[in-house]
């Protein structure tokens, strides 16, 4: 089972598209229909609200504005679907492996203005939320852009079974000079929007973003002043720099090298 998050960014709207069909036929379909929920952490419990159903072969777009009125504006709303009835309040995140497929069961997460839209196909995997109790992040990105009219943000999404809203340090560095370009705090169980206004990015090296206390999905968002042009894409985890063999050992070496340097 996967979760799809709805970012909150001033001046923009967001939506997620969920589908009740797998991408390949070798995966079995889910019972029809599935029940759609929105969930958020209030710091003590996970609040779950039933918001509709999705039939077999259906694709539905859920807008931030469509959510129930009691979804708080200062918390991140995550959409998921499940075949069971789920209580309105749970002390642990509702998890299930009934959608475990490779490639993963994706959704489309979109940011849009009155003029244009940008999206990426992704998800927050159940396995990532369930098994990574205290993770770390190293994200190498060439996607920050310099320019008079260009603004850069990093969306860093985290989910854990425990409804904690614990905070962790998050830094972005120039790995060649070790200069710290940006330092901030990020919150667990949240789609954190980190604003890099005023930061000039190096052109001859990627940026390296580090979180020692929290794993998550980093997505890079660039836009102009008026949101008439936008770009939105995530970075791969370091395991994808290689394929086959012991990619985890290679990632471990990479993480140890850089985490020990900056955190």
């Amino acid at each position, binding site marked *: 089972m996967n979760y799809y998050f709805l970012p909150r960014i001033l001046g923009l709207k967001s939506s997620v598209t969920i589908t009740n069909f797998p991408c390949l036929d070798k995966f079995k379909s889910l019972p029809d229909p599935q029940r759609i929920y929105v969930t958020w952490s209030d710091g003590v419990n996970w609040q779950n609200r039933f918001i509709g159903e999705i039939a077999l072969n259906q694709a539905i777009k859920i807008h931030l504005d469509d959510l129930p009125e009691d979804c708080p504006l200062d918390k991140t709303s995550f959409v998921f679907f499940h075949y069971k009835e789920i209580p309105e309040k749970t002390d642990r995140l509702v998890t299930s492996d009934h959608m475990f497929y490779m490639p993963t069961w994706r959704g489309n997460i979109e940011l849009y203005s009155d003029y244009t839209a940008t999206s990426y*196909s992704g998800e927050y995997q159940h396995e990532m939320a369930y098994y990574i109790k205290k993770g770390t992040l190293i994200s190498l990105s060439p996607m920050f852009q310099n320019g008079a009219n260009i603004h850069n943000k990093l969306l860093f999404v985290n989910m854990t079974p425990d409804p904690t809203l614990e905070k962790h340090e998050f830094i972005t560095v120039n790995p060649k000079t070790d200069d710290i370009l940006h330092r901030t705090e990020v919150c667990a169980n949240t789609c954190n929007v980190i604003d890099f206004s005023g930061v000039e990015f190096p052109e001859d090296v990627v940026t390296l973003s580090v979180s020692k206390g929290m794993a998550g999905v980093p997505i890079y968002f660039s836009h102009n002043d008026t949101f008439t*042009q936008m770009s939105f894409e995530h970075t791969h985890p370091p395991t994808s720099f290689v394929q086959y063999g012991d990619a985890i050992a290679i990632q471990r070496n990479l993480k140890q090298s850089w985490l020990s340097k900056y955190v």
Partner: protein
Amino acid sequence: MKKYLSKVKLVANFPLIQRARAVLNLNPAQDLKPLSKSHIVSDLFVFRCSDDWSTELSLFNFPSYMYPDAMCQESCLLVFYDASGFEVGRKSYELASLEMKRISISDCIPKSIMLGSFSVFHHSTLIERVKKQGSYITERGYVGYKNNSSDLYSYCHGNMKALSKSVHQNRVRSVVGRSKVKLRYRPQLLISDSDSLELIYVNPSPSQESLLLKFFDKQHQIVEEHFVEIPKFGTYLHKIDNSERLIHTFENWGRIVLWRPVIFKYYKTHFDVLHG
């Protein structure tokens, strides 16, 4: 039992066994292990270059981030194909440890070529360290697209491990997984929110492949079908006029196991690029 299953998985992923699985249609792999351990793997990325479009690769020495103690420089070979699948150029770049270069694809290919694909092969001494883990260095890329009304690049990463090349040989080989029968791929998204869009498919397989596209309305009824043959290493662009917003979803059928398109959706002032 767990030990037994992991051994079965290991054997099933031996390079020759993977190829036999494809021939026998026994759960064909999405991508194939290169036949030699000295190979480097790359996605096959789409480029668009014209008066209207530019494409930029953010090429960085990512192997040096895996082993920063080695301070390793590398040589990167870019191989370009036109839409018909003909190789139209190769270009090499030297990168210092941790270095990044922004490569404008229009500087690397003849001016007359507006659509095609390219791969990136990283060569350095770090291949030996990666080999010891039983792995292959793999370029998954970050490619930026800009049209003539843009101030910024819109990024999309690669979506298919496609080709491999040995350091010692010129030949580029396909490592994409294929099935004996046609398989369906259904992108998990909606395409009904823009007036026009383009689907771009590359064919990294070692032979011509047929592609069947099916488009559906909101009730999941077929609205349109389209059939095309894409040559080996070729690129195909399919334009869709959806001004009546009739088409909601689509699927593609072909022998490539995970045949994902790059999608360009057009809005009032800009475009969105994503992998399906």
